[in-house]
């Protein structure tokens, strides 16, 4: 993995598609897919973005409690998500909507979380995508442990591409400061676990710029733990795909962890509760707008003639229809029931909690009876 070991002092950024949509050669990495594949990623990214726009709107309208936007990070998410195989497993933060999309998670589940209906609700094991984790960094250890489990299952380095598996642990630039993330590096390195640490450096941890967390490029952290680190243009879906594919392959074949720093930018607010004008300059945003991950692929497809307006229009129409459906389904989600929550605490219910539940049911019932009584009185 050239340039990936993080031992040099020059900062190298792997890029295969320029902001203008031109293919760029790189000595270490190349993108293996054809234009149909690229068109697929384009669709993934447009739909992810449309999901994001719709969710933001729903939040503004009071239908979601909160939303964490993935705007600007679609290439990092789709590029890495599409590099995964069915048997791989991803451990996300709370912002990996594009990865969720690639794993086949119904986006409704993302909305149900932010609407306050549940804590996710997708079947992690079925889709190979863990529940969102809000406690910064905690999931990187879960990812590492899961990878240790894969290794114990004998599913690393068997040479059978349909069997060998690996894990991706997602986290942000801010998360690199957490003890847990560094401990994950230790465990992964010590057990040579089949894992890719995928850091989306979107330059901000809420209001704190990356400089507060690190004074050198993040990808260099890995070398100090004994495995390679590589920085990739996080707004370049082809480069992200190529770099992640190679890292996953390394992991699956028994060569241990890789750290990928996807260099990108959080184009929106931290969440809908945040007001970034308090701490960052509009100029910065403008600068990054020129590097937009979706526009870049569109420019490429346009320029090469691989797709024409009818393609783009069709995708846009699909996205809009998708949004309409999603909104309707969101509003139609049944409300959760407090009484049910007592059943989720333990696999083997305790008499104490069962009694608490029963008493609460009785208490609720007393209101219903009162209401009935009142109703009967009319």
């Amino acid at each position: 993995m050239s340039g990936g070991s993080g031992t040099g002092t020059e900062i190298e950024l792997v890029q295969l598609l320029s902001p203008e949509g031109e293919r760029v050669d790189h000595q270490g990495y190349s993108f293996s897919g054809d234009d149909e594949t690229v068109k697929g990623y384009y669709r993934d990214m447009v739909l992810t973005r449309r999901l994001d726009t719709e969710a933001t709107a729903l939040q503004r309208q009071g239908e979601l409690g909160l939303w964490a936007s993935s705007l600007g990070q679609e290439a990092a998410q789709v590029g890495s998500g599409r590099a995964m195989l069915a048997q791989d497993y991803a451990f996300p933060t709370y912002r990996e909507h594009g990865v969720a999309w690639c794993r086949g998670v119904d986006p409704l589940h993302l909305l149900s979380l932010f609407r306050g209906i549940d804590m996710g609700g997708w079947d992690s094991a079925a889709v190979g995508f863990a529940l969102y984790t809000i406690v910064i960094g905690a999931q990187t250890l879960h990812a590492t442990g899961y990878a240790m489990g894969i290794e114990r299952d004998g599913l690393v380095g068997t040479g059978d591409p349909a069997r060998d598996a690996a894990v991706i642990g997602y986290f942000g630039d801010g998360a690199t400061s957490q003890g847990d993330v560094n401990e994950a590096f230790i465990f992964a390195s010590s057990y040579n676990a089949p894992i890719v640490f995928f850091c989306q450096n979107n330059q901000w941890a809420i209001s704190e710029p990356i400089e507060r967390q690190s004074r050198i490029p993040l990808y260099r952290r890995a070398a100090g733990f004994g495995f390679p680190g590589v920085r990739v243009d996080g707004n370049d879906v082809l480069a992200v795909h190529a770099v992640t594919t190679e890292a996953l392959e390394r992991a699956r074949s028994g060569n241990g962890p890789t750290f990928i720093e996807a260099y990108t930018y959080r184009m929106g607010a931290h969440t809908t509760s945040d007001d970034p004008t308090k701490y960052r300059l509009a100029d910065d945003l403008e600068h990054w707008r020129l590097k937009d991950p979706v526009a870049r692929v569109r420019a490429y497809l346009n320029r090469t003639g691989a797709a024409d307006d009818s393609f783009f229009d069709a995708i846009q129409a699909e996205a809009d229809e998708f949004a309409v459906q999603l909104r309707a389904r969101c509003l139609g989600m049944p409300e959760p029931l407090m009484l049910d929550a007592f059943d989720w605490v333990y696999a083997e219910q305790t008499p104490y909690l069962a009694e608490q539940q029963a008493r609460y049911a009785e208490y609720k019932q007393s209101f219903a009876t009162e209401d009935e009584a009142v109703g009967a009185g009319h």
Partner: protein
Amino acid sequence: MTTLTMAKALNAGLRRALEADPKVVLAGQDIGKLGGVFRVTEGLQKDFGEHRVIDSPLAESGIIGTAVGMALRGYRPVCEIQFDGFVYPAFDQIVNQVAKLHFRSRGRQTMPLVVRIPFGGGIGAVEHHSESPEAYFSHTPGLKVVSCSNPVDAYWMLQQAVASDDPVIFFEPKRRYHERAEVDESATPMPLHAARVVRPGTDVTLVAYGPMVKTCLDSAAAAADEGRDLEVIDLRSLSPLDLSVIAESAQKTGRVVTVHEAPVNLGLGAELAARITEQCFYSLEAPVLRVGGFDLPYPPSRVEEEYLPDLDRVLDMVDRSLAY
């Protein structure tokens, strides 16, 4: 005399603490330019500089651990934990170091450190943003634990906590951040660790702290309509407990109901029940009853109103107490 929200009162309290003692420093995530996610530190970095109002890396153990070091160097750090559910990575530093350094040094080293924690639910947040971890800290010898329930206390108690030579875990009821009150900056505050009867009454005593004080006052008002006279006590100090005030009330009413958002099992209500029963055994007409969060992880926000104690659940428990 100014009308302030609790958030602004805390801000004013911090400002006075920073002015009063150059050794006071604030540290936490996003407390600088942003002024904290609840704006409690708004404007303070601008006025006191980056050396005194410190944006910390994203690592709670690091925030508390380095604050311990600063305290050993003579500083008085006030750390902000962004939300209740994120204090646990710092648990080791708080429980093993902050709480013990005075003891370990046989009193030679003081640990004048404050950990501010916005806590509790009711704001429609996602998971880990609505927890009530106060019992963990109250069970830990060496710490002092307080919670304010209104802007006036917020203003004074925070200054008192900063001035204390002991470590104080300071719980701020985040769902009350926007409630307002007149704050008289020239008044003389009551002691930090004293409980207060916020509504005198004769029939049943409600004991609460932080966000539930208002809930209890509302319950008492509703009960009054039905001719029941409830006394409401704001604990203010969770550790140490000011039991004299509570015991006096219990002896008077003979009936006590404790109210908090934290799960009932081993919550503050347990200790209150044990201590009140011990001290007022012959005066109690009913066992001390407890209203609290159910013994589950904090649920999704769309059921939180049912999860959290409210007027109805408090009054239901009052009924049960009176039924003895």
